[in-house]
């Protein structure tokens, strides 16, 4: 099993969700984060002075993947989240030892 973690632009969340559902993904966890990559934040003006705000709001999506190919998931997310502009985000995959569904106690592939 794998855990796919994606950092995306907040307004792309809806499209990413739909792309994942089309792949048959049954669950996901979302959180609010902020970050910067090569885009190095943006600038804001306040009271006539200009500031860089280097941490830009992003959304983190985490998806546990069992039977489905993790790379298909990555590709689907990347496609749905892309705008082609800087700040589009990152997706990465890590290995998961085991998963348990709390309600049923099912384990691993069944639990995803």
């Amino acid at each position, binding site marked *: 099993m794998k855990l796919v973690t994606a950092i995306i*632009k907040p*307004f792309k969340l809806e499209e990413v969700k739909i792309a994942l559902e089309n792949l048959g993904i049954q669950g996901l966890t979302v959180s609010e984060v*902020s970050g910067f990559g090569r*885009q*190095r*934040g*943006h*600038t*804001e*003006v306040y009271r*006539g*002075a*200009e*500031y*860089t*705000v*280097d*941490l*830009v*709001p992003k959304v983190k999506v985490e998806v546990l993947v069992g039977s489905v190919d993790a790379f298909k998931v990555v590709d689907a997310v990347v496609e749905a989240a892309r*705008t082609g*502009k*800087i*700040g589009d985000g990152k997706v990465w995959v890590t290995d998961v030892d085991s998963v348990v569904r709390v309600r049923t106690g099912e384990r691993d592939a069944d639990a995803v």
Partner: protein
Amino acid sequence: MHPAILLAADPVPAAVDTGNTAWILASAALVLIMTPGLAFFYSGMVRAKNALNMLMMNFICLAVVGVLWAIYGFSWSFGATRWSGLIGSSANFYGLGNPDVLSSVWGFGPIYKIGENLPTGGLTAGVPVLVFAMFQLMFAIITPALISGAIADRVKFWGWTIFVAIWVTIVYFPVANWVFGTGWILNKLKAEDFAGGTAVHINAGAAALALVFVLGKRVGWRRDPMKPHNVPFVLLGASLLWFGWYGFNAGSEGAADGIAGLAFTTTTIATCAATLGWLVVEQLRDGKPTTVGAASGAVAGLVAITPACAFVSPLGGLAIGLIAGMLCALAVGLKFRFGFDDALDVVGVHLVGGLTGTILIGFFGFDHGALAGGVESKRGLFYGGGLKLLEVQVVAALSVLVYSFVITFVIGTALKALGIFRVSEETELTGLDEIEHAESAYSFSSTLTGGLTHVSGGAPVPAERTEELSGKGV
């Protein structure tokens, strides 16, 4: 507005009644706070990303209308009648009787004395003209502000500002003249509208409906919940509205007397009953009474009692409030049935509530002042006055509705055609606060850090950053 408050072009000076003046000064301040109250009522109901834009759509009405009112608005609304009751104009009302070096350049007539009063007569004697002008200004401010809720989340800020300036000029000032001033509805038709059911609520509600059609739906309407981001603000706004509305309704008497007391009473009781009515409908329909419902119910009651407040008994007010609260609770569902995106239910509350109150005078009407003078037609159907008053009320309501709808539709269409009215889809998705105002409403987070680049007038933003900017920042 009590019919006795008529401003002659050249009012006869009289002694100031300090008590009446104190009440109208206080009332003007009370009505002033209604516009920020409305701003919070509305802003709490939109999503967090548009919270400031909603506040600004209301706040800018203060700024724009205040300036226009001083220059020509008061004269057009309360000056001597012109064109058979369609507009007012009195030279010495322009610039609020400005004793300015400019006045001679502009050719304005004689400067009126500051201490000058409303004409004596009736219950309204002894209030200086400027006090009355300020009280009425607050009505002119809140009326366009009411419209903003219907078209939340999708309008360019400066486009809206221009709309407000045009709209008050060719819709509000004339209609106020008809209903409150020297115009035809008050003086020829002799309809009853104590504090602005037609001029304020039907007027704003009809304009809201027109703009909803002109501007179209928001991205994601019907799909996304678009729930209130800050419900306590909704209730804060409703509370400030209720508070300020005492100036609006009881101040419309123009004096601190028994009729003001009656207006205060019916305003209170109708609002209480409407709140209960709305909550009961919610309980029966949705299974839960909500906070947004309580706030909306209170506003619906305030709207409906506005035209009627001094023309019905306390229990008549109770009935009007109850009916309006229940009716408006049902009416806010109409937009889903008919598919128009009236974002914050301005049509459902102000148009429906305003019509309800204006027309119910035809049933519950019982004008103590007029009755003392033996004017039988001022009794509604339930008090043996027959259908006469009802007819008059319907004509007044529909006249304002149609005029406001048509003219607003034209103004809105023109501004949209010019490309300065509706924001882009990307702006809607990102949020109007960031794109239109370069701000975000809240920064509770401790993880937002950054640094000063330069002070205004310094180096431009590095090119590579500007792309991210247009999407997310500034």
